[in-house]
């Protein structure tokens, strides 16, 4: 009775197809031998034909299967090729075309799991036989299935109101569909709103961003939830229910006109660590910047004199429209959406961590974000590039690339934008101060349109370039001319010598890092992070804005470091993917579900607490448990837990898995 090797009564007619994948598989696996072995050894299970072919996924390869299904009357297909995550759909569709239920096809990975990871040809060939035998044993027990169709709610949630999120929201809203944007800061705009110029065109960031922000703020299809954060996500593609916490603003947006008198009158000055990167001040009631969208300020409770000491209320006194409301409380808002786009951006690498560069210790070492504010006409110095004392114009400036990037001590990856950012800074310093500018770089990375031309332009402007990783920045003068300067110690790898270059100002071109809470975000939305913390796309090349979780898309730097054009492109791409879904009206999802055999269920209630989606319902009156197919996500946990064996599942049934184990071990069975 433990023998699962025999098939289920009716003998199936099985076709097995072993792919060479050019030399990707055939280079390591003797595919002809595998196909021949399957033909002879698995004939007893119903294998009628076993072929090998150069590229099974090609149209000719698919036709081969389709023709065999029709001519030989095949009832089951096993393809030994690449990962099911790549081509399962391809071969299922081929079966469908030949009028065979697509779920009667099993794709077995002999590329990702064998030829690409093993070197010994004999071992790889033997393992290929085993895993294909596993597939053949399994496929015998497959059931014909039909995908489930679920309707798509036409609204979309965009998390993050930076340029990627803004672009995505506008595309969707302009197409006529409702969008919710959740932004945790008081205004949308993101990092781009902090910049002065954008490379390589040197457009004024505010000039190109502000109109988009205004469109978002006034768009009839967009509901803007700033000063808000997503707290809970329930449901699945097509029908998510999202709970959003709207933090209390203490400003009634129905009355506020955005006149900013409150900000003028507020007596409490606070260092603005976020928008002004610590270089400037804001008030306790504030909008991060004048063009903020929405225009309504927020009261920062921790710094508000009234909230801390119980008296003040200056803002309330001066507000011409009585919009200040100290009694406001956080509220939870629930929205229903069909799809979600995550565009939460990045954190700047904290340059303090590279202690030898002296940031935080040496006054005139600046981070890139500080320099953005310094050079911004609306920034704390009105765009004057001066040292930390606020008056002295630097005569020499050193710009250090790759701070926190391409460095095993911090992040291995390249942050993509830092070279161009460093060049942009060089240009601005040169233009505004005439100072001598040094750029210290490891490799100059100026790929993409018009980027290298910009590099050439900066070169021609006279900026000096030193190839070498800066070892140290110090104020300890050793040589004449170093007194009062910052000395940059670097190995000039082109000249092949150590150099000490005294400068007045250092700008650290810091890299980008995942948001410090990226893992929480991934968990909240049920998707994965890379080891670095960037969210993982469904396919690195072919599906860059989708994720493994249906209905959750990603755009911009949340997926990895990106410049503005790419972030915008991803925002639009994610919107296009969502639009496709919305316009189809429904989506087909895998019919992998659990169900309870009421005859076998005795209502022990072991499974009742195991489903995170509340798909398991107990009927007191009948003393049986049932599974709501609309809520079941197909994980199979309840199937595995049922003590009575009363729960079964499609797609990954006990018989399929047990048969696969037998197949995998067939070669070793005596």
């Amino acid at each position, binding site marked *: 009775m*433990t023998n699962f090797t025999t098939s289920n009564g009716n003998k199936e007619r099985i076709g097995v197809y072993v792919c060479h994948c050019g030399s990707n598989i055939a280079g390591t696996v003797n595919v002809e031998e595998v196909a021949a072995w399957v033909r002879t050894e698995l004939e007893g299970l119903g294998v009628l034909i076993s072929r090998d072919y150069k590229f099974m996924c090609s149209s000719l390869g698919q036709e081969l299967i389709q023709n065999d299904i029709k001519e030989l009357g095949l009832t089951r297909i096993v393809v030994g090729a690449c990962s099911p995550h790549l081509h399962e759909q391809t071969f299922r569709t081929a079966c469908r075309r030949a009028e065979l239920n697509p779920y009667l096809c099993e794709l077995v990975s002999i590329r990702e799991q064998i030829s690409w990871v093993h070197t010994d040809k004999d071992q790889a060939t033997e393992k290929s036989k085993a895993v294909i035998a596993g597939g053949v044993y399994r496929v015998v027990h497959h059931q014909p299935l039909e995908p489930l169709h679920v309707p798509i709610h036409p609204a979309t949630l965009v998390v993050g109101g930076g340029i990627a999120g803004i672009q995505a929201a506008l595309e969707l809203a302009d197409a006529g569909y409702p969008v919710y944007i959740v932004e945790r800061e008081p205004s949308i705009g993101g990092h781009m709103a902090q910049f002065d110029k954008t490379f390589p065109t040197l457009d004024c960031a505010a000039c190109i961003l502000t109109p988009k922000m205004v469109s978002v703020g006034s768009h009839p299809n967009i509901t803007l939830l700033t000063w808000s954060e997503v707290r809970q996500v329930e449901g699945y593609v097509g029908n998510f229910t999202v709970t959003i916490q709207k933090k209390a603003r203490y400003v009634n947006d129905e009355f506020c006109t955005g006149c900013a008198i409150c900000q003028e009158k507020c007596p409490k000055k606070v260092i603005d660590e976020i928008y002004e990167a610590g270089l400037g001040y804001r008030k306790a009631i504030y909008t991060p910047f004048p063009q903020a969208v929405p225009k309504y300020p927020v009261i920062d409770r921790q710094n508000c004199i009234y909230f801390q000491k119980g008296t003040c209320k200056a803002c309330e006194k001066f507000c011409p429209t009585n919009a200040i409301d100290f009694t406001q409380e956080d509220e939870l808002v629930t929205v229903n959406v069909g799809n979600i786009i995550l565009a939460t951006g990045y954190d700047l690498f904290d340059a303090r961590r590279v202690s030898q560069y002296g940031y935080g210790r040496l006054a005139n070492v600046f981070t890139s974000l500080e320099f953005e504010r310094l050079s911004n006409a609306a920034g704390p110095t009105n765009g004057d590039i001066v040292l930390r004392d606020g008056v002295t114009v630097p005569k020499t400036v050193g710009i250090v690339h790759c701070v926190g990037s391409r460095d095993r001590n911090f992040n291995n990856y390249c942050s993509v934008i830092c070279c161009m950012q460093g060049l942009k800074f060089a240009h601005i310093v040169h233009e505004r101060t005439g100072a001598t500018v040094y750029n210290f770089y490891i490799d100059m990375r100026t790929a993409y349109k018009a980027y290298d031309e910009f590099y050439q332009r900066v070169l021609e402007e006279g900026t000096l370039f030193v190839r070498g990783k800066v070892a140290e920045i110090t104020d300890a003068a050793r040589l004449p001319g170093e007194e009062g300067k910052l000395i940059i110690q670097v190995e000039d790898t082109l000249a092949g010598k150590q150099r000490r270059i005294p400068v007045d100002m250092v700008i650290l071109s810091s890299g980008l890092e995942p948001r410090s809470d990226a893992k929480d975000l991934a968990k909240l939305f049920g998707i*994965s992070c890379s080891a670095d913390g960037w969210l993982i796309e469904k396919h690195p090349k072919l599906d860059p804005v989708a994720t493994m979780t249906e209905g959750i898309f990603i755009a911009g730097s949340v997926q990895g470091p990106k410049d503005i054009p790419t972030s915008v492109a991803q925002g639009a791409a994610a919107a296009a993917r969502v639009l496709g879904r919305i316009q189809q009206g429904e989506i087909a999802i895998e019919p992998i579900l659990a169900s309870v055999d009421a005859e076998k269920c005795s209502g022990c209630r072991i499974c009742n607490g195991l489903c995170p989606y509340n798909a398991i319902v107990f009927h007191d009156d009948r003393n049986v448990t049932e599974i709501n197919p609309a809520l079941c996500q197909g994980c*199979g946990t309840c*199937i595995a837990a049922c003590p009575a064996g009363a729960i079964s599942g499609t797609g990954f049934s006990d018989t399929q898995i047990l048969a696969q184990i037998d197949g995998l071990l067939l070669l070793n069975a*005596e």
Partner: protein
Amino acid sequence: MSDAFEPIIIGFTCNWCSYRAADLAGTARVKYPANIRLIRLMCSGRIDPTFVLKAFASGADGVLITGCHPGECHYIEQNYKALRRYLLLKRSLTQLGIEAGRVKLVWASAAEGVRLADEITKMVEQVKTLGPLNWPKWEGFFDDEIHSLVEIPEEVSA
């Protein structure tokens, strides 16, 4: 004989993390021993101790159970159920004389192709030191002279 021993290890993977880690190991051409044969499930919560027992009974020398890291399960918390079952199953297997080292639970995220490959390599090495499990196939086992008609010891040990 032990020099030539190549164990067979059945590995259970979840669709979202560890199977993708295996895919990633492939795409990145990370090498690991060919002794492992993977089965894809939707979730490590689908792991039924029956599968592990079946693997041993059918000739596997080791079983590797893999899933998303704690807190990162695609199905929110189902990998914890795999953890609980694994711990109780391991206690039972030990009592049956199956060394604890023959079954192992490893978490691997979709990004951890290298980690998964490392863990597979370690598992193969570990099972190699334990030697073959060689669970009897039973068919004819009791007719076989080696196994059947075991003589009652001449004298019981004092």
